């Protein structure tokens, strides 16, 4: 079970609004892309969900449990994990230590070792470098590690912020293939921030389009890739008309 509900949520940094009155729900097992131009509030939205930034108002719920006001560590215990923008792996820890940081919240200690083996099967390069400092990994390997680290918390809902940032296109393909496989295997609910609507359309799923901190579109990613709505979101209405 992992149904996410966002109701009327706003986020402000000081007086600067980052997100205003955003409302949507995500069903269990769904794959949702969040797209939009820089400054649209995509990262702020993910950070609000996982408790890294406070909401100014509104309500965030997972399976009916209200997340607002809970600490990030309490939210993680509800089965929600974040793979942040820029990976944020622990560079001074080894690869395997990175995988183990998030296992402290699990009650099923017995299967942790099997889970680590499973991660190593999905990402053989991580097994090869398990005792290396994670800071020495390449960008693509760090992205794999960040995903693996998130999975080790045994989540029901996974938030992934710009997994393609700074990676070569063939590596991005690999990252998405892995994410989709993991989702199918584990029945994860997956929310991915992705700048490239073309990429989202290829992977497939629902897409939420943000602009200026508000939802301006919600529907099938494949349909979005062809519509004018996307251009409007990125360039504003006038420019979009010019572009046509």
């Amino acid at each position, binding site marked *: 079970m992992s149904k996410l509900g966002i109701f009327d949520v706003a986020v402000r940094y000081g007086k600067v609004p980052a997100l205003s009155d955003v409302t949507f729900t995500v069903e269990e097992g769904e794959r949702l892309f969040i797209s939009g131009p820089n400054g649209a509030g995509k990262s702020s939205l993910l950070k609000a969900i*996982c*408790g*890294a930034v406070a909401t100014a108002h509104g309500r965030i719920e997972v399976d009916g449990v209200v997340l607002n006001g809970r*600490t*990030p*560590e309490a939210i*993680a*215990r509800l089965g929600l*994990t*974040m793979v*942040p923008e*820029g*990976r*944020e*792996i*622990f*560079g*001074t*820890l080894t690869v395997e*230590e990175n995988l*183990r*940081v*998030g296992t*402290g*919240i699990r009650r099923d200690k017995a299967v942790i070792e099997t889970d680590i083996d499973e991660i190593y099967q999905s990402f053989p390069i991580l097994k090869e470098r398990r005792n290396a400092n994670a*800071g020495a*990994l*390449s*960008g693509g390997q*760090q992205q794999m590690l960040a995903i693996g*680290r*998130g999975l080790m*918390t045994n989540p029901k809902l996974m938030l992934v912020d710009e997994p393609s940032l*700074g*990676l070569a296109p063939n590596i991005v393909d690999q990252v998405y293939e892995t994410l989709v496989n993991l989702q199918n295997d584990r029945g994860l609910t997956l929310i991915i921030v992705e700048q490239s609507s073309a990429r989202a359309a290829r992977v497939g799923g629902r897409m939420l389009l943000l602009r200026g901190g508000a939802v301006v579109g919600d529907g099938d990613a494949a349909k979005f890739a062809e519509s004018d709505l996307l251009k409007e979101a990125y360039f504003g209405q006038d420019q979009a008309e010019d572009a046509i």
Partner: protein
Amino acid sequence: MNAIPQLLFDALSLGGIYAMAALGIALIFGVMKLVNFAHGEYIAFCVFALIVPSTDAVAVMFLGKAPAIILIPVLLLIGAAIAVASEFFVFRHMRNATPVAMMISSFALGFVIQNTLLLIYSSRPKAISLWPELNQPVSVAGASIPLLQIIVILTTLLVVVTLALLLKRTRIGLEMRAAAENFTMARLLGVRANAVITGAFALSGALAAAVALIMVTQTGVADIRMGGQIMLVAFIATVIGGLGSLPGAVAAGFLIGAVSVILQGFLPLEVRPFRDAFLYTLVIISLLLRPNGLFAPKSTKPRV
């Protein structure tokens, strides 16, 4: 007389004290970016915990009367307790404050502790004799070394090894290292902020107690100002070591100890009283050359 082994033992034992004090500061800085200037006062507090509270000039042993096997663990617990209490009553309420604001409150807290000691014990330094037999010289490699120096060196080794094992091999150690590198990310993975910070303060306070025991045995004096000087050196060691780096703090502690002993031993007699001026000149030069510290942690920026 053999001067070289003598110097070596002096350097290692002085460096060991600095290293332990620097570790106490680096541990807390690592997890919450707080330079805790009250650390020196934790040391003084632990020293005074050994004697009966009174403003009399003559110190009467209280905890100091207990056998070592009770005295040592109890004093370590007292150190841990005052550090944890200061986190609970002061720093916990400043989690979102700037590092500068936290640092200034740590100064304030230090003054509060110092003035509390002043009220209870008066400002007069008191002679106390803890384990005087440890100042008996023993003969090592042709040099006459106080037994205490050897104990200090062994204690430092024990502390560093225990701390390294704790950080490397235990769950709380893993969480502390993760939190020291990226606190928010660690919390997003379910690491409890309060547990990690309380753990760091407890360890830091226990280290202050260890330093207190060594200082009081060595000097035979309880003085409410005794934490200030060592706190200053320890802070410099953590900066030179690269703020946030535990191995750096230990290495820089030993380095400062060694340099002061060498300066003391080799400076011409007439300038020897100004030893600290030379020492701090070297500190300034080292910071000009390596502003991030001699042992700054390697860059952990994500690679693209």
